[in-house]
């Protein structure tokens, strides 16, 4: 049984003209997402992950933006819509929540009023009906005494409650897709767990699809069905979640997995940081964006950008020119904590 995907992004490119040069924030990414599933987009700062999410709703804002490619939402290309058509999608077909709920809610308006505004932007209902719905939504996201708190101001809520209110607002028109940009990064860890649990429950209840944009691999493992790893504005690996963690096929993904301390790991073992730092998105050199930091880099990596090629079952793809066998050996060596030259030798990669 194949259903056409809810969201089908094809070769999306976004660049900004700035005084410092052309910033190629998103450099040709493609993915598809089915109804009811969650896609995790993982990357560090400067990977282009946030811009890719904002572009779907036309929120990148700058006048000097060039966008190309397609983003088919239920068959309609979002990138071809004009402002007026996009406004119908925003908050209704696709909703978005952001990282910092304190700065993302208007400080001068009551929370209830902001939710009511979201409702009445898309539904013809009376103010009192909208208000009743707002109270219902606040209850649905787990805010105690919603009728009493609907008239509170954002700064009167704690961080976790604020994020719940934002979620309530985003869900007010029952969107088919929710884009969550670092939804828990600004929150304490116990609150983070509550919010992720809430999103999971709501997703099942409402049958929506979700895109979670984050830098935290733990969050991705917790929430995502499929994962796309971004680096330098490109997707460098994509797979079903379990497959990605069991069988990562790109040196950057290995680097991410090995450089993060784990709560279930022993203490004292040395972390393997990725040397160097993430690239600037202005004037990316030809060739693989990760090559300057990659343990397996060789001459072939410097010419021509690697394409996403099959690297495992279930449409697992990775963008790396080093052969699959060689990579498998290299990953094994990495897991055994061998040093860089030993990994290269194991992989049989020449300088």
């Amino acid at each position, binding site marked *: 049984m194949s259903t056409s995907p809810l969201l089908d992004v094809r070769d999306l490119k976004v660049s900004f003209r700035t005084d410092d040069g052309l910033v190629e924030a998103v450099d040709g990414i493609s993915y598809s997402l089915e109804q009811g599933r969650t896609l995790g987009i993982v990357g*560090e*700062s400067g990977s282009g992950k946030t811009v890719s999410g904002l572009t779907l709703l036309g929120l990148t804002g700058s006048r000097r933006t060039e966008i190309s490619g397609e983003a088919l939402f239920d068959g309609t290309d979002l990138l071809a819509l004009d402002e007026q058509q996009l406004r119908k999608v925003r908050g209704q077909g696709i909703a978005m929540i952001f990282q910092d709920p304190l700065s993302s809610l208007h400080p001068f308006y009551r929370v209830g009023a902001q939710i009511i505004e979201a409702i009445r932007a898309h539904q013809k209902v009376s103010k009192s009906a909208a208000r009743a719905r707002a109270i219902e939504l606040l209850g649905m996201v*787990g805010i105690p005494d919603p009728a009493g708190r609907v008239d509170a101001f954002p700064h009167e809520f*704690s*961080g*976790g*409650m604020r994020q719940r209110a934002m979620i309530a607002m985003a869900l007010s028109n029952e969107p088919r897709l929710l884009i969550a940009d670092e939804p828990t990064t600004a929150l*304490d*860890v*116990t*609150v*983070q*767990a*509550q919010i*992720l*649990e809430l999103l999971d429950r709501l997703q099942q209840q409402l049958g929506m699809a979700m895109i979670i944009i984050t*830098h*935290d*691999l*733990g*969050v*991705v*493992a*917790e*929430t995502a069905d499929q994962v796309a790893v971004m680096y330098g504005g490109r997707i460098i690996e994509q797979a079903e*979640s*379990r497959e990605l*963690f069991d069988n990562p096929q790109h040196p950057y993904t290995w*680097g*991410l*997995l090995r*450089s*993060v*301390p*784990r*709560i*279930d*790991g022993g*203490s*004292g*073992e*040395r*972390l*393997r*940081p*990725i*040397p160097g*730092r*993430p690239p600037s998105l202005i004037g990316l050199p030809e060739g693989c964006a990760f090559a300057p930091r990659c343990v397996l880099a060789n001459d072939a990596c410097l010419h021509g950008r690697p394409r996403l090629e099959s690297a495992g079952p279930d449409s697992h793809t990775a963008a790396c020119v080093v052969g699959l066998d060689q990579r498998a050996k290299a990953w094994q060596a990495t897991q055994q904590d061998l040093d860089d030259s030993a990994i290269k030798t194991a992989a049989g990669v020449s300088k």
Partner: protein
Amino acid sequence: MTAPLLEVRDLVKHFPITRGVVFKRGIGAVQAVDGVSFSVAPGETLGLVGETGCGKSTTARLIARLLEPTSGEILFDGADLAAMRGSQLKNARRDVQMIFQDPYSSLNPRKTVGSIIEQPFQIHGLLGETGARRRRVQELMEQVGLNPEHYNRYPHEFSGGQRQRIGVARALALNPRLIIADEPVSALDVSIQAQILNLLSDLQRDLGLTIIFIAHDLSVVRHMCDRVAVMYLGRIVELAPAEQLYANPQHPYTAALLAAVPVPDPERRGAPRALLGGDVPSAASPPSACRFHPRCPRATAKCSEVTPQLEASDDGSLVACHYPLVRGEALAERQRDA
């Protein structure tokens, strides 16, 4: 048993809340730190963890005397830092240095990197011979992994990770014995965090440093620390060797905290992690007796009446709880919202 390098006794910091503009009336206090005691052995790394409002950053600043304690003692090598003034305090500061969280705002943007790292020498009047300071600064830059030729560059010319290295170099300038690292990697990208953590580990080993490591990221703390103190609303609720704490947490809050950390392992998906409901209460009007009791699934009436003291349990860790978890016991899941 070697004497501890640092011993904190009953440290208290209350920030008064006032009302009124012309005539300020005290109407209460934010009890940021409310009776904290611990000791740190030389060469050890002690972690202070907790969530917003637990008082860990305030404790750090109190030890570094960037804030004045309301009461309590801070014994560094036997001498009470809290009671020091003037030149005695100034000299003591050479031994206790701090690394700050935000590499973007903790460096003076108008000074060159070289002069930033050199400043401690100027303040204390050390290494006055020509060129001696510069040489030492360049030595320090190499030690933290920076290119000494960048002596004359400005902070904005460096990346976040490099700026944090500058902060480390500055902290090391006077050969301190105790370093307080306040969330040193929280503001950095994941792939850079590991570099800085490795740097700190290496420096500790090479220079025999004692480190108090403050973080909210439990995975990082586990990796870096020998012992860990868990704080909640201004008090320490558990203090134990890292292995023990993470394997067998005894305080319900510690257990909930550990359960909440997302692990990069999809096998774990669906396991209940949000064991705690609600939010951290305000530090201005904290709950009575055990501050955790309103959110604790094990709480009884006693918990709201009798304050549990930090006491040693069977395996040597310290817990402040009337009903600590025993080995292997799991914390009960809370009632979920409907």
